[in-house]
């Protein structure tokens, strides 16, 4: 693996962006500045960024409720994302989407889905466009271990396989779906399900290592771009926070030892050490990067705070390209 220095640094920057953005969101929700709730990707940054950085800027991507990391990883500007979480007019979806439904078509983000598993067929369809029109683009669907039990995934894998579609199915196995441990509801190993549909299935056991994720996804993308069809990648990871911010479950479904073990494998710390150890960047430079990112996040929050609320009438726009007069 021969990755340019720029790219390596960009990986760390994007991981930091996700971390700082989501840490900030967590507080903003607590103090009521963000309506509804948010699902953070804290702890899963390597899994997200390893994949998004392997994609080209023209490539497509869909995601799920754990939704901020994906567009940030794909290169979105933080301001319009944060403004969206605030429900502001300047939000990337004009305030109509919110945390669950971020989408930034300018970076190939075709939308996060609040319905678990539901955006996998959408990503498959984006790959169909690439194939029919011969654009050379690739499409990637992020989904969780929980989503891996939705039938639509298997319909998508089968269709992509027989049509040779350039799509990568990426299972973010953080080992829990809400309160439910994956092993209690998921038979066998997700990655091994690919074989039955005649596509490669790879499991990245150390999903806290951004380079491991990057490498697995890069190979799948190369295959796809070369016309060799879809792949399934399962990345083992862990979410450091609760399922969603503010959620308080009566039961302790994840024990403290497990949590500590995984928290000790912080993807940002791991890669920081690697970058320093391999002479890619100094500790000082990385600290500076973190400061820059923190400033970026602050600027995004300020942008969101200062942005106007959407005009009430916009609730009746954007439903159709040719509207026909539905109003309050």
């Amino acid at each position: 693996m021969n990755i340019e220095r720029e790219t390596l640094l960009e990986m760390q920057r994007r991981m930091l962006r996700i971390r700082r953005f989501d840490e900030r969101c967590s507080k903003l929700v607590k103090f009521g500045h963000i309506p509804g709730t948010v699902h953070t990707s804290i702890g899963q940054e390597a899994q997200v960024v390893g994949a998004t950085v392997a994609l080209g800027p023209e490539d497509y991507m869909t995601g799920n409720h754990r939704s901020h990391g994906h567009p940030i990883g794909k290169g979105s500007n933080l301001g319009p994302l944060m403004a969206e979480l605030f429900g502001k007019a300047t939000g990337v979806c004009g305030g109509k989407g919110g945390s669950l439904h971020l989408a930034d078509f300018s970076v190939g983000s075709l939308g996060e889905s609040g319905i678990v598993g539901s955006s996998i067929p959408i990503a498959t369809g984006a790959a169909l466009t690439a194939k029919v029109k011969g654009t050379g683009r690739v499409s990637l669907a992020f989904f969780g271990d929980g989503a891996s039990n939705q039938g639509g995934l298997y319909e998508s894998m089968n269709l992509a396989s027989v049509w040779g579609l350039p799509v990568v199915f990426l299972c973010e196995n953080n080992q829990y779906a809400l309160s439910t441990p994956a092993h209690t509801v998921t038979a066998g190993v997700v990655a091994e399900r690919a074989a039955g549909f005649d596509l490669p299935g790879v499991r990245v056991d150390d999903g806290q290592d951004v380079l491991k994720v990057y490498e697995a996804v890069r190979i799948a993308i190369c295959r796809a771009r070369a016309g060799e069809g879809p792949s399934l990648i399962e990345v083992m990871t862990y979410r450091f926070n609760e399922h969603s911010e503010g959620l308080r479950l009566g039961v302790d479904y994840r024990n403290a030892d497990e949590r500590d073990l995984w928290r000790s494998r912080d993807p940002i710390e791991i890669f920081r050490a690697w970058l320093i150890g391999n002479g890619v960047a100094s500790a000082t430079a990385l600290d500076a990067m973190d400061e820059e990112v923190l400033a970026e996040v602050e600027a995004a929050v300020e942008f969101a705070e200062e942005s106007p609320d959407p005009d009430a009438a916009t609730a009746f726009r954007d439903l159709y390209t040719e509207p026909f007069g539905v109003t309050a």
Partner: protein
Amino acid sequence: MSILSYLGAIGAAQREAMQADEDVIIIGEDVEANVYGTTGGKSRADKGDFLTLFGPNRIRNTPISEEVIVGAAAGAAMTGLRPIVDLSYSSFMYLAFDQLVNQIAKNRYMFGGQASIPLVIRSAMFYGLSTGAHHSDRPYPMLMNVPGLKIITPASPRDAKGLLRSAIDSNDPVICFEACPLWGMKEDVPDEEYRIPLGQAKTVFEGSDVTIVAISGTVPEAWKAATKLRKEGISAELIDPRTLVPLDHRAIMDSVARTGRLVIADPAHRTCGAAAEISAIVAEEAFDSLKAPIVRVATPDTQIPFAPVLEGQLYPNAKRIEDAANRVLGLGPKERETQ
């Protein structure tokens, strides 16, 4: 002009659209072999079938996987293609309901207009053909309750060609409900390309005594009823909305303003059907013109049985529409139409 069947007209609209724009593709089960007759039809041998004309890259024969067929078509539509999905019988649609309701109807809105979804889903309502409850659905009212979709219900070959073409042109998702009792219907259809705008009702007959709004497969039945009434000296106005979303309120309201009486024929189940909506609009917006109860002639709220003697009695027919008209004119028995 050529004489075309309803199915032939649909084939013609699809062919013209595919010739005009190479982003238009067809996706569906058994579309290669043209099982359902619109991607080649009887003209297959002479005019060449769609597979020969457009090749397998654009005529996409699928596995039986309605969820991903519809979802992938949506994803394709969001990224530059204009898919037509042949979803075959309407009761298969439920397998794709999440994609239809959660993705197709919502995505453009949720994403603040970043996406458009130029997608047509063709759905065939095979009722009245002894296929039982699993193949006889008429589910357009369910989708009328979902903002973000457009819905057309052409009731003649000419309308089928013109409306379907507008649907394919539209940048919004359109569901085309095709009533199989109409499939054999033939009429002169212009050979050239034409479009019928979505949201414009057709006044089939003008009249002054009673307005009959008839939907999809009930239009020919209402036609018979109106003709019969005419012979009895009653002037019925017959309106086919053609598009259910957007619905041409104006045409219906204007007519009721003149006649003061309304009968609605709707092959869907009665409760929360399209007829309920039309009735409610009129009861709210044209109440002062109304001289009589609004009567719905719909399919009663039972599932569809297999035996012809059981099934045959259920759908709105000329007789029931005529009786309903007589009732609102104070000429017939006063009982309720159904239930």
